[in-house]
């Protein structure tokens, strides 16, 4: 009996503790602090992404605070862990907007969790900015939801355009991970865009994550004689595919997406992946002084080279702080309007603008794998209007419709795309002799 009472008592005290959590009502964000809510997966299946992102955001906040804060107010980050769970993400955002009175919310790597949380922020009219949720549905949840990274269809289009225009390839092979939404999504876009640009997808082969033998698929691919192979998958499988392809005597370049971004790609793949290309949000080897400073500061602080998620989150935080500063108010509507009018924000992942869907428009880095596993920036691809896949709201992209390579001649650096390109220019020049292919002959003035 005594134990029953202890059990009941424990439950009651827990309920009481939850009910009495401190916090003001909505709009309690006044005073001399700017409260920003951050929800990330610090534990659970995507913990490593959430931790990188949170590191980037914390660093950005400390930078602004050290420089005197936003219009004299210090930033107070409220970082919460959602255990990689969509329901819990929604619970946290409910708490942010009703208990904590945050001025803005930055959150989630995974699209599923951002989508679950977005309607709550939208209803409360608190702007939410996601640094790395790439699902197009995310920003369709309402006009208070923003995204500071590219979406998957744009990435797929960039891959197709780079192969067709910059490398001048005509016959493509596709190697798709059937079980993976990310991979099949990119496949769809490549199939749509590559033929539009004068190419042809001659063969599609599939595999499943974790496969180790790709000889069957690669024999078929070799038989159809492609001049480029798209592998929109994750680095572990890609490295093995590359190795077996080279063993079979397939020497054509391989092109992939941000799933390739890992030091493991070269560790496993070795010489086989050298000379391949993949799209990414940023590169730590970018010679842009802004990026170099970010990489150096991050390394001093956390002891590791920042990955793409840390960089996109760092940018997202600065975009949010910049909007609060320009709004000069903690009112949700004012911050939302300031976010929407963000113009040419100079981030470490490129110059950021928002289109009418509140998705970031920025050049996509095409990374080249060099000897020794070094990643160099081949070029910054701005997807052309013609290459934009349907249903992605590509209208805003048509204004910067010059391919990075053609714009990268010294005299052409007048538009936004050209300015963003100065880093790529020097990089492509210094590495020009290290590669073959149409891209470099074009990029060298």
């Amino acid at each position, binding site marked *: *009996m005594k*134990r*029953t009472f202890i*059990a*009941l008592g*424990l*439950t009651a005290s*827990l*309920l009481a*503790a*939850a*009910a009495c*959590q401190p916090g003001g*009502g909505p709009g309690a964000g006044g005073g001399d602090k700017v409260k920003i809510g951050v929800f990330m997966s*610090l*534990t659970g299946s995507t913990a490593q992404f959430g931790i990188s992102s949170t590191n980037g955001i914390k660093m950005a906040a400390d930078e602004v605070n050290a420089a005197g804060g936003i219009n004299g107010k210090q930033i107070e980050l409220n*970082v*919460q*862990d959602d*255990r990689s*769970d*969509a*329901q*819990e993400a*929604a*619970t946290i955002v*409910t*708490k942010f907007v*009703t*208990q904590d009175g945050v001025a803005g919310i930055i959150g989630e790597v*995974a*699209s*599923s969790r951002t*989508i*679950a949380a977005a*309607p709550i922020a939208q209803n409360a009219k608190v702007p939410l900015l996601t640094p790395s949720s790439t*699902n197009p*549905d995310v920003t369709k*949840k309402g006009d208070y939801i923003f995204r500071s990274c590219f979406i998957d269809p744009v990435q797929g289009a960039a891959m197709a355009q780079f192969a067709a225009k910059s490398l001048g390839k005509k016959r493509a092979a596709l190697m798709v991970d059937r*079980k993976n*939404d990310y991979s099949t999504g990119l496949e769809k876009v490549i199939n749509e865009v590559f033929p539009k640009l004068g190419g042809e997808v001659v063969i599609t082969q599939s595999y499943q994550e974790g496969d180790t033998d790709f000889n069957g698929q690669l024999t078929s691919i070799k038989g159809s004689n492609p001049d480029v192979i798209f592998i929109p998958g994750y680095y572990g499988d890609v490295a093995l595919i590359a190795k077996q392809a080279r063993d079979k005597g397939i020497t054509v370049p391989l092109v992939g997406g941000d799933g390739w971004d890992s030091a493991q790609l070269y560790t496993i793949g070795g010489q086989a992946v050298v000379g391949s290309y993949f799209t990414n949000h940023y590169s730590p080897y970018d010679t842009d002084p802004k990026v170099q400073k970010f990489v150096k500061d991050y390394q001093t602080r956390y002891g590791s080279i920042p990955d793409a998620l840390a960089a996109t989150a760092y940018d997202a935080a600065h975009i949010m702080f910049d909007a609060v500063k320009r709004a000069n108010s903690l009112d949700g509507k004012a911050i939302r309007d300031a976010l929407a009018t963000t113009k040419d924000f100079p981030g470490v992942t490129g110059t950021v603008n928002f289109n009418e869907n509140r998705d970031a428009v920025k050049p996509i880095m095409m990374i080249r794998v060099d000897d020794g596993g070094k990643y160099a920036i081949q070029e910054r691809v701005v997807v052309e209007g013609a290459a934009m896949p349907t249903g992605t709201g590509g209208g805003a992209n048509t204004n910067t419709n010059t391919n990075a390579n053609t714009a990268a001649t010294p005299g052409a650096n007048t538009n936004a795309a050209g300015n963003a390109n100065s880093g790529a220019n020097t990089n492509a020049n210094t590495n020009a002799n290290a590669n073959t292919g149409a891209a470099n002959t074009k990029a060298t003035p």
Partner: protein
Amino acid sequence: MPRYARNLAIALLLLAVLYALDYLVFDPGRRMISPYVARIIMLAGINITLAVSLNLINGFTGQFSIGHAGFMAVGAYSSAYFSVNYGKGIAEGMGDGALGWAVALLLATLLGALVAAAAGFLVGVPSLRLKGDYLAIVTLGFGQIIVVFLNNIESVGAARGYSGIPIVKSFFWIFLVAVLTIVSVHNMVRSAFGRALISIREDELAAEAMGVNTTRYKVAAFVISSALAGAGGVLLAHFDGYLNPKSFEFIKSFEILIMIILGGLGSIVGAVIGAIVLTVLPEALRGFAEYRMVIYSVMLIVLMITRPQGLLGGLDPFKGWRARNRAKTRTEAEEITAEDTRDKESVDKATLGERARDTSLGEGDTRS
């Protein structure tokens, strides 16, 4: 007062209390409690439905099912599909008011429960003919299959998730389902049907020897448990208006399993408390930031060491109260004898299984 009239009065009173709470406290327009606290209470309500329904199969029938999230997903997705394609039309046809949505949600709940029951039947019939751990393996497999299926069905959003489900966040509805689940499981366990289930848990061979058709009873319990899990899934689907296959992976099944193990297998009050504790605990510990999950885990471990049978495992929390009400002088041994005479008063008091545990296990003993 005749028995049915009393029961009807209790039911009406319950409905009135739930509706009053919904109207007076949980109406967001009134700002009585923070939406954050309201959200946690409602999530606890959904978890109560799930935990109590799993307890029927794991706690009372003694079968080890670890695919509860799969049935939940079946109920959630089928009802969400219904609500998106037909529910909206039904609600709007009836004036788009509270009544229209109540009817639409009622239909969605019934449909979700039915489809989940059908899935439970499909899984249960072949696997429950076997004894031992096979059900665990089959249900684990079923949970995985459902997730793979959902990841590939384009019409419910595949891996991107299913959004645009009408949001009906109703305290009344969530707790009505929770209370119905508790009452029906409680009554079932105390009926001849429930006694057959408990006899299967205690000794399947002996139960069969006594004429219990074990397969039939196991399948029936499993189907009912699945249907109730489906109803829980329906509530979840309409809670945030967004579903993702990732939310129904085996980790979710284990969360529900932990709730009933923590509360005590075979105890309804235990399952309810387990569900509440496991919903509230992560939120209550939010102030500890990165140590939150460490503290959470340590608390679970300490609890399992000190009370391996769960918070309320192996005891009836109201037994003492009822005993005092009846006769203060009677000892527990006399009570059991009294039960055996099956006087009208004590028939509903203790079950076969509880008695078996009362005699074979002392408080604090572990089952080996």
